[in-house]
């Protein structure tokens, strides 16, 4: 099956120049500039099937925003080919924008000074939404996102979380096949984040909307996305399932053991001989970490329980943060982590 998004060797090059220092430097810049090219996105290939909820992550400057902006038709690619739902986003911009919904957390799509409902009406006019469909969708969206009390307010009077809920609703009024979200929960509190996450899961499940999500909040990715694409320095360094990447060699599990008596630090350190590292956290509590491929969790648990009376024991999988940090390190060494298949 062919995907709804297909990118091949997509590249975006910016022309930039070295700015000289000081006033005199700026004057010299006017006359002569040392230009150089920056590859913000460097040969990305991607295939996304319809209905997927894809997490798109990477550090600042990795090329996330640039590639999202190419995907949404804002930027013209320098080279490579792309097709989204049968359209070329930049070339077929006007027809293509009808197929997609876009939410940029940093700025609103709504008119600042007029009531939210007026913005919605204008958008539905722009997107040619029939009145019956508009009414039905608005009813549905305002129920799930609890917009009823906000509709009469001008956008400038909304809190960040309220505004984001309105922006999400606005992006879905024309029932797009794809939804692009760039940092949709930036600056929101935990409750607001939760409700937006639930909402995204629901529309992905109920309407089969393909969702591309970029965020710095890795917990969000972990809760929402089955597949992640990790970018670094304009290249994709990982593309695959979240489960598999966590099983990548070199990642460590952590363990916390509460003993009934004094914690046997030296004994355990000798027993596992470098395959696990332990340290004392309190008199009765030991914390440690170990790599699953060197030491199975079962062995650790059995060994400890056989020898000591244990009050409590917890093993934690590597956190997504650790996974990402490791990916960047490996990526820096030039190897692309295989995650597909």
């Amino acid at each position, binding site marked *: 099956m062919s995907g709804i998004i297909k990118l091949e060797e997509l590249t975006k090059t*910016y022309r930039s120049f070295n700015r000289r220092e000081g006033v005199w430097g700026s004057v010299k810049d006017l006359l002569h500039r040392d230009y150089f090219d920056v590859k913000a996105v460097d040969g990305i290939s991607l295939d996304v099937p319809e209905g997927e909820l894809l997490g798109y992550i990477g550090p600042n*400057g990795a090329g996330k*925003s*640039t590639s999202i*902006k190419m995907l*949404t*038709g*804002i*930027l*013209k690619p320098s080279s490579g080919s792309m097709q989204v739902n049968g359209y070329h986003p*930049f070339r077929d*911009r*006007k*027809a293509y*924008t*009808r197929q997609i919904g*876009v939410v*940029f957390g*940093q*700025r609103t*799509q709504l*008119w*600042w*000074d*007029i009531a939210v409902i*007026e913005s919605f009406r*204008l958008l539905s*006019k*722009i*997107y*040619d939404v029939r009145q019956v469909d508009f009414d039905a969708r608005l009813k549905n969206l305002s129920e799930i996102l609890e917009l009823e009390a906000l509709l009469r307010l*001008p956008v400038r009077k909304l809190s960040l979380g309220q505004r984001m809920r309105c922006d999400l609703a606005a992006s879905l009024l024309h029932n797009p096949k794809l939804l692009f979200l760039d940092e949709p929960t930036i600056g929101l509190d935990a409750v607001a984040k939760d409700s937006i996450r639930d909402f995204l899961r629901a529309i992905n499940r109920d309407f089969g909307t393909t969702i591309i999500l970029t965020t710095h909040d890795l917990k969000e990715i972990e809760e929402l996305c089955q597949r992640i694409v990790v970018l670094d320095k304009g290249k994709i360094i990982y593309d695959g399932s979240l489960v598999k990447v966590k099983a990548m060699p070199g990642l460590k599990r952590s363990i916390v053991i509460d003993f009934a008596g004094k914690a046997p630090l030296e004994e355990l350190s000798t027993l596992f001989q470098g395959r696990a590292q332990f340290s004392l956290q309190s008199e009765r509590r030991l914390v440690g970490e170990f790599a699953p491929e060197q030491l199975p969790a079962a062995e650790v648990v059995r060994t400890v329980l056989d020898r000591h009376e244990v009050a409590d024991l917890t093993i934690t999988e590597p956190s997504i943060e650790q996974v990402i940090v490791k990916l960047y390190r490996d990526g820096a060494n030039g190897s692309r982590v295989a995650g597909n298949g």
Partner: protein
Amino acid sequence: MRTLSIYGSYFNQFLMSRLAYKWDFFASLIANIVVTLSGLLFIVLLIDGEAVPSLQGWTREEVLFIYGYSMISLALFNTLSPNLYRFGDKYVIEGQFDRVLLRPLNTLCQVLFESFNLESVGSLFVGIWLIFYTGASLGMEFGALDYLWLLVSGISGGIILTSVFVLLASLSFHFQDRLGIGAPVYNLINFGRYPLPIFNNVVQFVLKWVVPFAFVAFFPATHFFSRPGFEFFCYFTPGMAAICLLVAALAWTYGVSKYTSTGS
């Protein structure tokens, strides 16, 4: 038709948010009329009929007629143009152009219709009054074709002015530095509001072929004078408007393909 109705809604939205601050609007409207009238006062005082009886043979009434003629195009342009001046800052550097590109509409029309200088209609009324007032004292009689020409040339003049500033605005796509080129060009508009022959040849050439502001008011206004020598350029205003619009549209489209958005 549907597109027109969408831009009508854009205008309504603007009107609603503008009238949210209605005293500010009325103050601006009055300020606009005062500024317009003070421009007139300058001509009235300059060509006082005694020390300066005329400008190289162009009488006070003729000069005022051309000046009034220019106000129609200028009012149209001033109403539409506020976003063109701040285009570089507001849309390109701040990245607001992203939002424009995300909608299934023409990008230039969106930028023009997101903000208006409604108070400029003040000068439209002053201009129309001035044309008929000075026209009457010059002994002009207006027939149906004259009204039509006034309308066509007025709109064409507005298109010429707007196109020049669209071209300047589209430079912001290439040079993210703030170019202070808008203000000097805006001042050039004023040269186009006086009889062209009073200027030296360089200025005349510039106003005809570089920034064609002579086609905004002076040339089309000669239709109403019985002065020989302008027959050729008199009716070229709509053609010049079409050329300007084409050049501006090409420059704009090319600029959009070079848009780099902001870092985040």
